[in-house]
């Protein structure tokens, strides 16, 4: 399966298992989603479980909060993460706080799916990585898969989770992993081991990172598309890096990170999102606090620049192989 098929399969499995799971969003019903993630679900489960919505993100999330309060388990889709902002009030003030403010009387067991990230010439409003906004909100969990196998297992775990989960899907790697070399053809998922996805139910627990490459020289923390870009650079440069795919940003798998950085003595953080106030800052602070006496070099952050995401200048903006390579040389210098 490619990542879209894996995500589709996760929703199919959960809708089959739990009659309270409902899927909703703009174009998700009859048409099956602009990325085909919900294809076939309405035909299989009917219009009252998979339905199209008006173009209103605050409405979609507000309605999902109410459905959750009733006892359903909604899986709303926001067509692009860039368009999640009209729903921020419902996510931050309502979904994230409902359990806390009602002392558990009401909960918002919803999973907000949304394609995110750049690398597709999406320009300013089809490329953003707003995960840092959500990891800053207490009460929300934030999950970002990087392979079809993980996408399905994590999405099933997210739907089963009784807390609201923001599930960002890196759309650059829906069809195949991307190593950052935009001038080369992309290999489809079919040639990748992680495209072996079981048809039925399985889950990958939230809050658990994955060491995708073991190494001794430096720890690289990444998620989403950047996991593949980083692996490409590490292979090309022959660096003995330990690459960790965080998978869940919140709650963070701090133990895996801490053990790795204490082993390698160096830490590099890579994300597409803009730098200032980004999730990398939190990662850097955590590593600094926990691994200070093990660090042999300053923590490096390779991120998007603090600008809106540009269109024609995409490959100057995107933290690709050259920028990651330079940062690796710098951190490994001594």
């Amino acid at each position, binding site marked *: 399966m490619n990542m879209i098929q894996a995500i589709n399969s996760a929703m199919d499995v959960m809708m089959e298992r739990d009659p309270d799971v409902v899927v909703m969003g703009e174009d998700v019903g009859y048409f099956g989603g602009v990325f085909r993630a919900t294809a076939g679900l309405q035909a299989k489960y009917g219009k*009252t479980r998979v339905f199209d919505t008006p173009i209103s993100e605050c409405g979609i999330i*507000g309605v999902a*909060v*109410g459905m959750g*309060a009733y006892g359903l388990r909604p899986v709303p889709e926001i067509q692009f993460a860039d368009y999640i902002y009209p729903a921020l009030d419902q996510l931050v003030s309502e979904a994230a706080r409902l359990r806390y403010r009602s002392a*558990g009387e009401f909960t918002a067991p919803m999973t907000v799916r949304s394609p995110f990230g750049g690398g597709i010439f999406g320009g300013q409003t089809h490329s953003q990585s707003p995960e840092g906004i959500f990891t800053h909100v207490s009460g929300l969990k934030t999950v970002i898969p990087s392979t079809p196998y993980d996408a399905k297992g994590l999405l099933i775990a997210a739907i089963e989770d009784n807390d609201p989960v923001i599930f960002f899907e890196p759309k650059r790697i829906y069809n195949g992993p991307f190593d950052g070399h935009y001038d080369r053809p992309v290999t489809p998922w079919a040639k990748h081991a992680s495209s072996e996805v079981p048809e039925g139910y399985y889950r990958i627990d939230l809050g658990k990172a994955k060491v995708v490459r073991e190494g001794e020289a430096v720890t690289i923390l990444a998620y989403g598309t950047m996991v593949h870009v980083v692996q490409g650079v590490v292979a090309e440069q022959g660096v003995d890096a330990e690459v960790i795919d965080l998978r869940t940003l*919140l709650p963070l798998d701090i133990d895996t990170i801490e053990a790795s950085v204490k082993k390698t003595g160096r830490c590099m953080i890579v994300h597409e999102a803009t730098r200032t106030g980004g999730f990398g800052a939190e990662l850097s602070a955590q590593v600094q606090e926990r691994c200070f006496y093990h660090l042999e070099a300053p923590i490096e952050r390779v991120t998007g620049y603090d600008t809106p995401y540009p269109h024609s200048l995409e490959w100057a903006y995107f933290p690709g192989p050259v920028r990651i390579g330079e940062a690796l040389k710098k951190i490994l210098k001594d």
Partner: protein
Amino acid sequence: MEGVPDRRNLPPLRLHVPEPRFRPGDSVDFGDLAIPAAGTAPRPAADAAPDSFHDLAYTMVRVLDDNGQAVGPWDPRLTPDRLRAMLRAMALTRAFDERMFRAQRQGKTSFYMKCTGEEAVAVAAAFALQPDDMCFPSYRQQGLLIARDWDIVDMMNQIYSNRGDRLQGKQLPIMYSVREASFFSISGNLTTQYPQAVGWAMASAAKGDTRIAATWCGEGSTAEGDFHSACTFASVYRAPVIMNVVNNQWAISSFSGFAGAESTTFAARAIGYGIAGLRVDGNDALAVYAATEWAAERARTNQGPTLIEHFTYRAEGHSTSDDPSAYRSADERSEWPLGDPIARLKQHLIALGEWDDERHAAMDLELAEYVKAAARTAEKNGVLGHGMHQPMETLFEGVFEEIPWHLEEQRAQMLSEYDVAGRPGARK
């Protein structure tokens, strides 16, 4: 200049900024307010098409006339026992408000909001709904809980944030949450409950349930985007929901003109969405009851949503933090042409020969004593300012279903600091 149109002969544009008619010190005359006579609004069938509500959205459903007689097609024909129960719940709501307002002034709690003058809007609606219909209130529908016989000591515990507070002192006073009474957790963020109510109603319909949802917001809050999305979703999915707009003329210091009232009614908003819209005398408990009963029947028979504007007046300040004499005439309350909802229902019962001044005075006395005793009971659980009434650790509970490591870490840090400083809190 080349290409620039010459507009010198046009008068300059003017920006219209609404201004209320009466400011502090002004004498008040509501004489030109269009108040239709009781009994004149027609009562359509519960399955009437949404586009037939144009006139009802601009007139006003009123049942009680100036003599306290119930007139016209909207008279819900309630039994005297039911009328007395409703009167009692409204009077209890007012007595509760009086006591809690005073408790705030005495420093026993940080904050309170009265609903004086608006008791009918919540109480009569609760009487017309089934007890398991889900209510998504704003912060000024405490009458719903009281009408549903919810324990007022429990409400006071929440206001005092004390040991008995089921919300563990996490919420600002009056932001109740009572799942058992089908009363949704109140949020400080205005109108967020509107699309949530629609979603709850959609879920009920999708599951083939028979329960409906009802929600309330003030007229000021109709300006929020959530109001628009809720109306759109309610209309699109024909959700079994009643959307109440409590038009009490004031949003803190801003008069209803800042929500658009100079140009239209709030009930008329319904027309554009294809929703049935009613405009109701909000100080007439029978009109509120009848409209809610009608809308509930419409929702329960899959005829879709109803928007009800309750035309009323916020008789007191916005909250204990507000002084209305700074922005409106003190005479407005006494001059309000729709009177007082409790006085009007009382007059009706007396006109029926089912009530009298003596019984009413005795009831008021009894309710005051009842509320006072409840307050004494609640205060035994503590009042705000007497230290922390909940174990400190509870601060970290309920953010998530299970406490993640980073919150465990912060909790441990807090407790070690507590041990050093001896803070005024209790540990589990």
